[in-house]
């Protein structure tokens, strides 16, 4: 069972706890500012979610952080190493679960993992260990084109863990998965974080980000518009409401931020008319609408 990790995460105490440090990072394609002067840090062991519309700059940010694309300006470090000049030392300690299920489909699950074990210089016993971890031991010798979408995604996770990365990028990892497989994957992400792996997650699913993340960042039109824990964001930007059932069986939604509504509630309470009352916290979706001006 996944629990909200935001409550259990200890923020960084000093710079040695910083895994990703992004400073004024930009990437322009001609006149298009795909990523525009963003700055943020991600702590070691943190699950950090990056949320935004398609084309907001999420994938471009990941591409820069993983060395696929060079920044136009600004800088970023991973584990203290510069993403441009120290890329060679960064690559062995990171890995990526991409948006697409990019497996060698004519090869078996085991052969897929063995290839990357060899590339990373990892002992082949790691392959067996990971196949067991993602529950793919039995179909390991079958060509991956025969796998279900959930099995493929589990194999990609196993591939991304082959080098025991300190930092794992997950790009829409639960997209296209059935609810059971998605939950299984979220459990695995939470477990990785518990074991010290830093997770950089992009997702469209607000509930997923809310459940999993220690902190979330909203990006819109290449700009970072909010970064905080889900709870803080909801407290700052979400509207606190209460659902009240009165003795005449009428239901009312009242805003706890509105003094008139608060006064009305106080009157109902003192007159004994309230049969039940449930507080309703704002959602991340509400927060996103509040800060980005449109729904995700």
């Amino acid at each position: 069972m996944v629990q909200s990790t935001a409550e259990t995460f200890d923020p960084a105490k000093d710079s040695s706890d910083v895994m990703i440090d992004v400073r004024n990072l930009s990437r322009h394609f001609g006149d298009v500012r795909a990523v525009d002067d963003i700055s943020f840090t991600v702590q070691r062991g943190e699950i950090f979610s990056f949320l935004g519309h398609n084309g907001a700059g999420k994938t471009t940010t990941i591409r820069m952080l993983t060395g696929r694309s060079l920044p136009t300006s600004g800088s970023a470090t991973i584990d203290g190493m510069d993403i441009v000049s120290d890329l060679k030392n960064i690559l062995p300690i990171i890995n990526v679960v991409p948006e697409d299920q990019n497996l060698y489909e004519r090869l078996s699950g085991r052969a897929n993992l063995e290839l990357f074990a060899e590339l990373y210089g990892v002992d082949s016993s790691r392959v067996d260990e990971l196949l067991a971890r993602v529950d793919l031991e039995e179909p390991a010798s079958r060509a991956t084109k025969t796998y279900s979408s959930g099995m493929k995604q589990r194999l990609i996770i196993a591939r991304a863990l082959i080098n025991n990365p300190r930092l794992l990028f997950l790009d829409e990892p639960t997209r296209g998965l059935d609810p059971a497989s998605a939950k299984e994957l979220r459990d695995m992400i939470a477990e990785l974080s518990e074991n010290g792996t830093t997770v950089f997650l992009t997702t469209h699913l607000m509930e997923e980000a809310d459940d999993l993340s220690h902190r979330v960042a909203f990006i819109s039109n290449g700009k970072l518009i909010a970064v905080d824990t889900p709870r803080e964001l909801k407290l700052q930007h979400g509207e606190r409401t209460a659902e009240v059932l009165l003795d005449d069986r009428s239901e009312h939604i009242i805003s706890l931020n509105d003094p008139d509504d608060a006064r009305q509630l106080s009157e109902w309470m003192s007159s004994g008319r309230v049969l039940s009352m449930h507080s309703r916290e704002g959602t991340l979706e509400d927060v996103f609408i509040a800060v980005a001006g449109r729904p995700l």
Partner: protein
Amino acid sequence: MSFRNIKAIYRKDLIDAVKDARVLLALIVPFGIAILYNFMFDDEQPIPESTVVYTEVGSELPERLRDALEDSVDLELEPVESEAAVRERIEDEDADMGLVIPEGFDDMVAAGERPPLGLLFRDSTGVPVNTLTGSVDLVVRQMAGAQEPVMMSAEIVSPPEGSGPTLFDDLGLRLYFVLAAMMMLIGMVGVLAVPIILAEEAEKKTLEALTLIASYLDVVIAKALVGLTYLVLGVGLLLGLTQTWPQDPLIFFSGIVLLGIGLVGFGLLLGGLFKSANQLNNWGGLILMPIIAPAFIIGVWGPGVLGYIIEAIPVAQGMKLAVNGISGEAIFANMWVSYLILVAWIVIFYAALVFRLSRLRS
């Protein structure tokens, strides 16, 4: 560049690529064509056969005539009883030539008595009549003890390169077309199989996973090596299947390897231009045609603008070196030009490839 990465990707590709029907087809088709040519054509120029009937009088003339012609005509000798029988066989078209030899012919010749000798020919013979009469004249002179007035030496002088079908005479049709199919194999591996392997990596985005730890250069080198491995295995297998071995292995294999390296480089460039392996497979045939066509026409195409264009295509030069290497003769002159053109293409293809790779992470 990492040898570990190159080795891992190379091993993966070597196994994975042949499971792809498109790649497998590109490897198998030239084999089928080469084997077909191998059975269809014959390198040996057949010696014409001819039947000679003669009156059986115990003369050495027929046997000596057969010996004199053994390099150019396969003479079958059939003795008959009389001049009438000789004429009858000629009329029935059972024989090309008839010799009416009188009794005591050899002795009379040796004694210088100038005995009569009748020659009868069919109206159309497989062997020119003057060849037969000339040979009879030579043999009877020898039998008469006459010394040949001159020591004759004969030499066949080849016309200048490109002006005639000398290549086929020197090499033989079978070998020529087997070599052309070999060039086709190199073309199909370089321009079809290798780019399909690369385009599929990009299309399926497995290239993204690879280049997270390996460099683009590692990937490209591994794929170039896979292409060259297929070439070496394919050429070796073709030589074995057609029971052919180059007379000058250095020229032959250097030509094959240089052509292979060049076309694989071209294929890797091509692989980056197409969005999908299927798209490349569909258009690859069109690209392949002008690339491999010179292998089939280099032996017969004359000079001219088109001739010069054909000469500039790497397969034409690869074919020339292969022909010279397999025959052990300089059928095509100026081999250094062939090497120069191949090396120039290699430099162009790989410089373009390095330039392209340098722009991938920008």
